[in-house]
């Protein structure tokens, strides 16, 4: 009840118009009804996440902290960590995401064909298996490997977002299908790689296909029935964007101002918004007090910027949407008229930061474009936008008044036009960070960020759209950032209040795994060679490492069972960085440039598919 009143207060402050009051009353009643019916379902996942022994959602919580209160494993004993148990996933190629642990059960997922296994923690025997039959024709329209970012749990159900876009709800007890929903059409290049997210009484999912001219959107399904509740498109008319031209705001000349009518349509030429991308395959967050869902949108379709004049809204944008209605409260476009494929889909961390002596409810985001952003997650005000890799060069800085990046024309493929190769742009298209999620250390207030340290050459060219065929239009090569330590990654600690790197640990390859921090003052991450590493949160000093059979692109997780703390991660190279190995590509410009960039990986690892779980030795 209090939740609804708070929501009304936030949205309705200052409104006096009778029509608005009436409409808000109706929406308020609907929201109240939704809240009451959702409460039973919500408490199940919220309760599960609140228990530190579980790892009940992909990020451990609604806020994308990737933090655990468990401290049995700590900085002084982590050096003794050893393998507790292991399991093959039975599948090769990129293993992203992590398992879930609820009580005495672990739920494991795999890359395509997206098998799901319920495993008894007592003895690692299988309780049930779900092995979907998917059309293999889906694989060729997955640009960047056959990854799946994981399962979700709520209301006694396990949720899987299949590559072929089918969203499935399984009975957590026996693996039987409770409901399915078709979320897209692979024939027009639509697939899914994202994990579904459960917020209160809704399943939130997105869509992939930014390299196939797919039009992006975020979709909410009813947790119990699988009915579609709302669809929020990233480009197009206002009624499809789910925006209110007068109420949805964006950072404008130093303050929040309404986005106005046809904000997307006006920023595209003709009907190009229909191929306008803005896909939504990253990690989402939810603030239950504000009732807002936070996520980012991907590239604006073709990688040839000359072909799509305009700011291309709302690609590369951070959205804050009401969970019940999908209506956007505020938006912020990070890279208007993108020229580099700097998708805005990376995770949104919800953190309260000290800003100018006050505690501000903030959202922090490490964008592909190399800037670490901090915004007020209630109002959408821009607070911080600083480079989290000092070698980022495509923009000198972000103008804090307009919120727009100041582009350096030397690194602008739009400026030189199609069929001209632009050299030494930093970061490369895969960004200073791709989907690999950061972790918020609640004890220090710092964020531990797995980053890429890669630059590129970029040559755009004219493309034509054919449904189901790639719609890209750029040739890339990638290489380690020149004039630096020679490696392709750094694991950094970042202060989100001011936007500063506190410490930085270089790595030979991009740190493509999701980080984890714990109350034991330890941060974990995996490397592309296959090492799982533990470092001190204070200074990044390496405390322990173990080489798993294949490169790590999964997210490190932790749980406690029968009094013992465990840390685990999938081992299985792939993803965009590992696409050469995963898809058997050899030409350096293949894999959107990643094949050449990461060819050295072949010296250190090869394909695999397993889960490794570690613990301290038994006394």
């Amino acid at each position, binding site marked *: 009840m209090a939740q609804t009143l708070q929501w009304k207060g936030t949205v309705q402050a200052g409104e006096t118009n009778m029509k608005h009051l009436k409409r808000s009353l109706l929406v308020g009643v609907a929201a109240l009804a939704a809240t009451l019916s959702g409460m039973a379902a919500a408490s199940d996942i919220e309760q599960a996440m609140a228990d530190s022994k579980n790892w009940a959602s992909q990020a451990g919580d609604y806020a994308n902290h990737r933090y655990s209160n468990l401290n049995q494993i700590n900085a002084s004993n982590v050096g003794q960590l050893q393998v507790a148990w292991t399991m093959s996933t039975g599948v090769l190629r990129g293993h992203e995401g992590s398992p879930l642990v609820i009580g005495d059960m672990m739920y494991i997922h795999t890359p395509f064909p997206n098998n799901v296994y319920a495993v008894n923690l007592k003895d690692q025997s299988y309780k049930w298996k779900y092995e979907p039959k998917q059309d293999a024709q889906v694989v060729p329209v997955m640009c960047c490997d056959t990854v799946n970012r994981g399962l979700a749990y709520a209301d006694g159900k396990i949720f899987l977002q299949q590559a072929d876009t089918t969203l499935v709800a399984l009975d957590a007890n026996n693996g039987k299908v409770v409901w399915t929903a078709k979320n897209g059409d692979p024939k027009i290049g639509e697939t899914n790689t994202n994990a579904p997210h459960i917020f209160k009484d809704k399943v939130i999912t997105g869509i992939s296909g930014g390299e196939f001219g797919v039009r992006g959107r975020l979709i909410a399904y009813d947790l119990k029935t699988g009915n579609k509740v709302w669809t929020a498109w990233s480009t197009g008319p206002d009624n499809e964007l789910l925006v209110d031209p007068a109420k949805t705001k964006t950072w404008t000349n130093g303050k929040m101002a309404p986005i106005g009518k046809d904000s997307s349509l006006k920023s595209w030429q003709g009907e190009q918004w229909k191929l306008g991308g803005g896909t939504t395959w990253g990690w989402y967050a939810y603030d239950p007090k504000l009732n807002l869902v936070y996520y980012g949108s991907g590239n604006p379709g073709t990688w040839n910027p000359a072909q799509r004049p305009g700011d291309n809204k709302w690609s590369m944008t951070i959205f804050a949407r009401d969970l019940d209605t999908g209506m956007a409260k505020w938006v912020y476009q990070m890279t208007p008229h993108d020229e580099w494929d700097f998708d805005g889909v990376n995770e949104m961390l919800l953190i309260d930061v000290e800003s100018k002596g006050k505690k501000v409810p903030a959202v922090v985001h490490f964008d592909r474009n190399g800037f670490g952003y901090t915004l007020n997650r209630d109002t959408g005000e821009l607070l911080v936008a600083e480079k989290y890799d000092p070698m980022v060069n495509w923009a000198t800085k972000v103008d804090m008044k307009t919120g727009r990046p100041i582009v350096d024309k030397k690194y602008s493929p739009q400026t030189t036009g199609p069929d001209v190769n632009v050299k030494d742009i930093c970061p490369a298209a895969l960004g200073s960070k791709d989907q690999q999620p950061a972790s918020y250390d609640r004890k220090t207030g710092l964020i531990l960020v797995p980053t890429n340290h890669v630059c590129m050459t970029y040559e755009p*060219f*004219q*493309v*034509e759209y*054919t449904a189901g*065929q*790639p719609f890209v239009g750029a*040739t890339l090569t990638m290489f380690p950032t020149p004039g630096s330590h020679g490696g392709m990654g750094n694991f950094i600690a970042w202060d989100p209040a001011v936007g500063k790197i506190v410490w930085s640990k270089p790595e030979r390859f991009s740190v493509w795994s999701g980080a984890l921090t714990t109350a034991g003052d330890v941060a974990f991450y995996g490397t592309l060679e296959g090492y799982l590493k533990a470092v001190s949160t204070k200074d990044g000093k390496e405390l322990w490492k173990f080489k798993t059979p294949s490169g790590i692109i999964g997210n490190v997780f932790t749980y406690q069972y029968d009094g013992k703390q465990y840390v685990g991660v999938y081992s299985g190279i792939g993803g965009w960085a590992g696409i050469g190995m995963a898809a058997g590509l050899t030409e350096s410009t*293949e894999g959107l440039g990643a094949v050449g960039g990461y060819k050295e990986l072949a010296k250190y690892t090869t394909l695999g598919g397993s889960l490794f779980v570690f613990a301290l030795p038994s006394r």
Partner: protein
Amino acid sequence: MLILAPLASGAGDEAKLYQVQEGTKVDAKTLMGWKTWRALACERCHGAAQEGLVGPSLVERLKTLSKEDFHTLMLNGRPEKGMPPFSSSAMVTQNWEGLYAYLKGRSDGAIQPGRLSPLE
């Protein structure tokens, strides 16, 4: 060395199908043909060097496929084999002759795979 390739149809036509220097510099029409190849992402099925993938090798096919049959094929596709029609593609309808010239040059071994540039 500039290679001039006569049409292979045996109709006694004196026109040159494509001009190429050093394997990678071609005449404007053939260059547009290559750009059309690139724009429609044909390498998806036919391979980056036209060597064949899920679709047949064009290096082989162009040895026997006539220009007229090529035109028909581009407009209608081969739906039963998975090749879509390209009749609605402006680039294909405008540049199909240059595309044929490019692919024939590849098939003849006179034009190298990969990036091309204009004649000097």
